[in-house]
């Protein structure tokens, strides 16, 4: 069944042409914010949760979605570990397509929907229950539940929030709301961090080099842009996806003999 990869470009990747130069979007304004910010030395508990100006908001988002933010993102591969060990992705182009489909027709789009609903103030507990129920495998449930719990621990401690443990996209939406961070920027950074984590996992599990990994990540920026434009007003009834093989990969990862990742 794991036949050769189709070589034609499809609707998702087709948008890549002409996308060059958009991936550095967040860097400019964030830099400006750094210059205009002030160091107050305020004790943690006295830090105001809101509101933040645009520049400060971008810095907060850059911090939340940095690989150094302690959610353990590096230990999860979303089933990619199994796909690669099964020899199904043999080129940078194949890795890029796999990630693009997981973003557009898998967890990427669904997470944005949950994030947006939480940001708008819908009951986080109900969203959390639905998101957990939609996990297609034990490892995918672990991935979203543990990253969410770690994220909540960090934002509660540093930004003085009072969130209960929630799956990752619901936690991010609820935290962004509490900190008055803008929805669209939060969603873009969230999806970019997801794409970056998958790319990083692929680079570690294949002979792909760091530069090829960065090229893959840069290539997803058009898709991330489109998904953020199209998805943030989507009702929960339109949740859904079609990455059946990626779901199966995460199931089979449970019994993989030699595992580089927890999922």
């Amino acid at each position, binding site marked *: *069944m794991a036949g050769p990869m189709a070589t034609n470009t499809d609707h998702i990747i087709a948008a890549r042409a002409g996308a060059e130069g958009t991936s550095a979007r967040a860097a400019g304004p964030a830099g400006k914010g750094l210059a205009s910010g002030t160091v107050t030395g305020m004790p943690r508990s006295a830090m105001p949760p809101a509101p933040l100006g645009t520049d400060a908001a971008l810095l907060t988002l850059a911090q939340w979605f940095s690989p150094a933010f302690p959610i353990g993102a590096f230990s999860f591969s979303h089933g990619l570990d199994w796909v690669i060990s099964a020899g199904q992705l043999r080129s940078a182009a194949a890795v890029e397509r796999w990630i693009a489909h997981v973003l557009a027709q898998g967890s990427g789009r669904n997470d944005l929907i949950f994030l947006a609903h939480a940001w708008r103030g819908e009951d986080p507990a109900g969203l959390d229950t639905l998101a957990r129920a939609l996990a297609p495998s034990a490892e995918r449930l672990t991935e979203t539940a543990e990253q969410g719990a770690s994220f909540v621990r960090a934002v509660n401690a540093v930004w003085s929030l009072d969130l209960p443990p929630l799956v990752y996209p619901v936690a991010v939406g609820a935290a962004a709301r509490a900190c008055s961070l803008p929805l669209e920027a939060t969603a873009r950074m969230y999806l970019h961090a997801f794409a970056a984590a998958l790319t990083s996992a692929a680079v570690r599990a294949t002979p792909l080099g760091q530069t090829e990994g960065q090229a893959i990540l840069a290539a997803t920026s058009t898709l991330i842009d489109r998904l953020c434009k199209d998805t943030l007003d989507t009702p929960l009834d339109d949740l859904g996806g079609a990455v059946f093989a990626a779901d199966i990969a995460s199931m089979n990862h449970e019994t993989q003999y030699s595992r580089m990742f927890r999922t």
Partner: protein
Amino acid sequence: MGRSRVAARLRDGRSVLSDLYQQGASKVLVPRTAGTALTAVTLNTAGGMTGGDSFTVEGQAEAGAHLVMTTQAAERVYRAQPGEVATLTCKLEVGEGARLDWLPQETILYDACALSRRLTADLAPGARFLMVEPLIFGRAAMGERLRSGLFRERIEVRRDGALVFADATRLGGDIDAQLDETAIGGGARAMASLLFVCDTAEAQLGALRALLPATGGASLIRPGVLFARVLARDGYTLRQSLLPAIERLSGAPLPRTWML
């Protein structure tokens, strides 16, 4: 258009019919079978579904009863007129200590079909629910390819009122091309979802895994909730993997309609 409802209750150690309703193109047959379960076979006398059709199927296994629901034949989802979508709503209820096996035969999606379906199952404590939903993308034997179409599915299973499993599928556009993608179908033209919810589902994980092909996977998502997906080249190959897996989880041979 059609609507049907069937309910089973326990009487003297056997499951018997307690309610039966059929309207429109939906018919329900209750064949005499060996064993103590009640088997209900639904039949779409319209021969298939097309855009704008609306079908509702309700099934209930009352406390302690065992209801097996299946279909007389594969369900064909024909080409729809632009903007028209067929809907299928399935509402299942499984009482305390009851069993319901939802074992429809394949749904075959024709080119340019449009189907949105929803299945909800409400399980009481100690209930046991087995569900299989086999799906075939295009009539491969006729060389048909799903160059366009729409398929949406939402499944929600509640145990004692709490949502314990959901699945949401959303396919549209050139489905055939998408199925060739590594993350989506890896070249498959048939797919099945298999769900087993019961207090002792854990015990079946190893056996189920051993029965699945390399293109399938199974996971105990949470205690009592065992889920599997299987991809296959075509409907025939899918059946070969599904039959032993379903028989293993149901502990009984498949309904006779599957064998015809």
